């Protein structure tokens, strides 16, 4: 094995790639997000194209304060600020509020003149304590066409999954109940006993129960469970 020769070849290939590919990424794309669940709402979604090598979170890692605020309370302003700081192209909150079960919404991104080659879609799941839906740093195809991706449910690991009504503020127990969910969420649950896991992972799902005025949780096991995937994301590159 001739090491210097293989390095030379690699350099040649790199040079060739640089000559062929423009440095900036150029794409005009639409991103449709469909909520595939039976009864889980998505809070406002961040939809962004961002540079290679950047991401908002990593599996197995501790969540940032911005991811925590998104996952516990649906607040994407912090995530938006991070995305701004790395020059991302953003089209946040395309649904203008909650994306209800079965509904779809579409965002448009134009990355002309940027180096934004990765797509992230992220938002909180309700009712959960710190569950979120995400497509994390998916490479945006350069060929015009329609591409389908499926997104999974993650747990931010920042809050105990007690599954009872409470707060959307970071670090405070329970989950927020905005008006459209009021009638679906139980009351009087004693709360599951567990603790924040400390790292981002695939969500194990809601447990819930069938007692809407007591029991262990305020989540309805017949309405608020899910299996992955929970969202279908259709990217059309124009």
């Amino acid at each position, binding site marked *: 094995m001739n090491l210097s020769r293989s390095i030379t070849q690699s350099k040649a290939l790199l040079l060739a790639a640089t000559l062929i590919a423009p440095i900036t990424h150029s794409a005009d794309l639409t991103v449709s997000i*469909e909520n595939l*669940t*039976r009864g889980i709402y998505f809070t406002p979604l961040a939809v962004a194209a961002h540079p290679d090598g950047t991401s908002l979170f990593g599996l197995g890692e501790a969540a940032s304060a911005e991811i925590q605020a998104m996952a516990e309370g649906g607040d994407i302003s912090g995530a938006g600020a991070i995305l701004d700081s790395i020059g991302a192209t953003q089209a946040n909150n395309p649904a203008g509020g909650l994306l209800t*079960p*079965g509904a779809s919404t579409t965002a448009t991104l134009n990355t002309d003149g940027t180096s934004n080659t990765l797509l992230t879609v992220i938002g909180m799941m309700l009712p959960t304590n710190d569950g979120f839906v995400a497509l994390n740093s998916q490479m945006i195809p350069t060929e015009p066409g329609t591409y389908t991706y499926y997104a999974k449910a993650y747990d931010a690991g920042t809050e105990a999954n007690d599954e009872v009504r409470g707060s959307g503020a970071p670090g405070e127990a329970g989950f927020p109940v905005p008006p459209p969910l009021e009638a679906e969420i139980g009351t009087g649950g004693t709360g599951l006993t567990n603790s924040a896991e400390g790292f981002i992972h695939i969500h194990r799902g809601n447990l819930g129960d069938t007692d809407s005025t007591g029991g262990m949780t305020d989540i309805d096991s*017949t*309405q608020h469970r899910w*299996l992955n*995937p929970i969202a*279908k994301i259709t990217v059309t590159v124009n």
Partner: protein
Amino acid sequence: MMNPSLLRQRGYSLRRILGTLTIGAAVVLAGCSDDDDDNNDAQQPEPEVMASYQVSIKNLTAGQPLSPIAVVLHESSWKSFATGEAASSELEQLAEGGDNTAYLDAAMASAAVFNSASGSGVLTPGSMEDINLDVSADSVGTLYLTLVSMLVNTNDALAALNAVDVKDMGVGEQLTFTALTYDSGTEANSESADTIPGPAAAGGAQEGYNASRDDVRDAIYVHAGVVTADDGLAGSVLLETHRWDNPAIQVVVERVQ
């Protein structure tokens, strides 16, 4: 009285002419008689050139027998179902009762469907079945596969591959897919012995298809799983062993001819 083999030979010639038409009319006029001479000299009566696919389905669940598998080979313009939209009546019959007759009849009535087939019977957990389908070799370049089956120990759960791309497979080439499970959105998930047709509901009325639609919404979505009596759902005849996770089916498609 014409010789039947001659008829077939003429038919063959006609197909070649029609095929050549796409290249250019001038070529057709020039090449016509030559083609006929060649056929008369060398060709036996020629059947239509076919492509054959073997579809191998494996049930990956712990406790969900699958209703006879419905397989459809079609063009992209044919659509069996879409999440977020209401199920067709034919799909509802399959999803609630496991009967694929109306579903396959409706598919075959479409000009965009090349062929379809049914599995021979219920596919039990862990078992595997091969289903073979032929299509005209002309359709290889536009071929999509849809596969649907009911998880019979549920109210209306489907395992499905929805129009996966099997275009331009070479002979001997294999593609592997895994199927998600969907709720057809046509029946409430009571999990009761009176509303589930599968063996878990033995002793109940075990109703299959019922035209009324009473789920949380009349639209197809990814199934949330069953709750079961073991997890506290009053009236459920299901046990924890009837739960599953995605994917529920593995499908290997091989072009064998």
